[in-house]
């Protein structure tokens, strides 16, 4: 049963990893703007060269 000590430690480390990831996400501003990214991901990158003006 002493394997439990190891398992608990691993599960705690894993949870700690998630906590660190969360803290990083908050600090890098991912929770500041919850709207714009949802629009941004739907937009195409501009790939075409500057268009000739339709003159």
């Amino acid at each position, binding site marked *: 049963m002493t394997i439990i000590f190891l398992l608990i430690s691993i599960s705690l480390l894993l949870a700690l990893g998630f*906590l660190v990831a*969360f803290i990083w996400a908050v*600090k890098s501003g991912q*929770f500041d703007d919850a709207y714009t990214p949802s629009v*941004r991901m739907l937009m195409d990158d501009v790939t075409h060269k500057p268009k000739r003006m339709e003159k």
Partner: protein
Amino acid sequence: MLEFDKAPHIGMGMDQRNSDKLICFHCGEVCDNDDIRIEDKIFCCQGCRIVYEIIAESGLDSYYDIENKPGIKGLEDVPQNKFAYLDDAQITDKLLDFQDENTGTVTFSIPQIHCSACIWLLENLHKFHPAIRSSKVNFLKKEAFIVFSRDQLSLRRLVEMLASIGYAPDINLQSIEQKNTPSASRKLWLKLGVAGFAFGNVMLLSFPEYLAGEGEIEPYFLQFFSYLNILLSLPVLLYSASDYFRSAWVGLRKNMINMDVPISLGMLVLLGRSYWEIFTDTGTGYLDSFTGLVFFLLIGKLFQQKTYDSLSFERDYKSYFPISTTLIKDGGEEAISISKLKVGDRIIVRNRELIPADATLLSPSAQIDYSFVTGESRLVTKKSSDFIYAGGRLAGMAAEFEINEEVSQSYLTRLWNHDSFTEHARSTVSTISDTVSRYFTYIVFSIALIAGLFWLPRDMVVAWDAFTAVLIIACPCALALSIPFTLGNALRLLGRSSFIAKNIETIENLAGIDMIIFDKTGTLTMQSSDAVIFHSFTDESLTQKEMRQIKTLARQSTHPLSYRIYQNTVGNVSDKLVSYEEVEGAGISGEIEGKKYQLGSKQWLISKIGSFANGLDSSVGSSTYVAIDGKIRGRFEFKNTFRPGLEKTISELEHNYTIALLSGDSDHEREQLQELFGTDKELRFEQSPADKLEYILEKQRQGKNVLMIGDGLNDAGALKQSDVGVAISDDISAFSPACDAILVGNRLHNFSRFLNFSQSCIKIVYLSFILSFIYNIVGFFFAVQGLLSPLFAAILMPLSSITVVSFATLATTMQARRKGIIG
């Protein structure tokens, strides 16, 4: 022939006719004609055409595919050196977030951002200029964060480039004085994250004890789990819950028992007893309850903190004033930051620019629009050597001024030195929760003490257990959650109905209001779509063609009345205008297709033409007279139109509230307003900003809870002083003075519903208090006997919280639906 007298609102019908109208390809406005075009694309003005060209040349014309007609109306003739002040290194230093030799980053507030095409265009700024490395838009805050190469592109050029595509950043005195600080919600998220992490893991480690029977788990496992729990609870105690302890401490030092006192007390007892049990090896403690409690409380805190990022409730004159003005020095002109203006400096102010400080006029005459400062809606003409108050906007020709007072000492800015701005006039703490928690704390403490004393002679251990158990079970978790969830949900529901409150205390204050004071201009009346009525003096009314030609003439002038005539008349402006003349503050004239048109004040027309042909004139309010070929044909009357549904709103409100009106305007509309308000109401006219503030103070001394509805800078003092200050605004991203709530203009008719709803919400808060007391009583029943197993606490505490939270949110939503706040 059109009978204008019978159809008073000539401005009507603009919208209905859209179908066969020419729509500008760029901004979507109706075009006067199709003169301005590229291929099959028609533009309403040269400004829009130029913006289109700039965008298309950079290959970004997909802008027009993302949204239909996304553009911002281009401005013609923007003065060349409008942004010259950005060459001043001191100003740029303050504006830039970060800079080194070749990189600069800046965050601009761009109020024009309104659709996904805006995001797309602004995030592709690098296509316009290679020196822009990246740009990122925050749509809700209406901000753009731009990284650019400073050695290749100056800040001024960057701003000018943004302005050239219609997204001129809003740079004002406030943007340089106040730096962006990371939002407070980040901290709350972090605290919540830590608490959630601890809660989850403590729960997991506590499960074996709850699930397994007596003696099924080896004791050393339980000990290991318990010590791990202590380790996990430490960050919650020291970090996540720190705000509660701090607030309780602050309250106690002021001899006040706020809601955080019983919460902190409960948490400390919970922790103390848990640590004691674990260290003495007598139990496993209640650490799962503790971490869960903090986790739920923080969720409540996050929920009540609905923030509207693009709105600011704390604006003052600084966000209205520009950061620079044009100084005349040694015969040349120079942009100077307005905080550096000194008494005796000479400045030049151009059309639509703001007069930054109290000054004396040096030019022969100038016309000044004080509408935002005084509420007075017409232009004031000033003569040379007149004293001019700061805050007015110049209309028409540029004029020179000599500064009399520094900016911070000027009449308008001095208002902000008033007591109501410097001291914290209103406590922001919720009064209900303070009253309730005071009684609550006393009662709980007495019960705990009685239970303890009852057991003391019989059994020391049970006495200790009972005493702590009462304090633990009574921890007002559910109580503390009922206010944030009820009022937080109310805040959201009202926000959906365009009544945007600053915080939950505003809603609580709203429920206690007994007097409502209205401002007139801009609050009761609509600033934009005022009606223009034509009264003919002769038998023949104006023909459609004549009307169109008057429109053409009116378009030439920057005078607000001309603009209103132009805005409110139908027809295309296509006629060629010759020999246009404008006499500042008097009138305009011009010839169209051989006919001579004159448009102006009565005096001016009399001086030009001679006396009126017939004395048919009984003008009230502001009018502009029209003469065609030397014959006076009639006058345009400008009437303020009241917001729709106003009459109903006032009649609904007058039953329950005292109503009054404070207007900065003269009393020429007294009759009209009396009809609206009824004769028994107090109507005050010609009120200065300071008068309004004084009036509210006086009413508050009489014990009234005052709500003020206003819109302009002239109401700022009154809004701040009142118990609830509501700023009304037709465009919520536009400027509104410091206030507690912003109401979108077209929802004024719902106002009595909002007040009614806020009162229901307070009732819901009391009901949820009762609900949580019931849980507490059940808990007490066990606690006073010293029977409180960790499992029982772990079930009862979250259960009571969840019940209260669901009751609060469901009840408020239901009330909002019944009151017609939401559909």
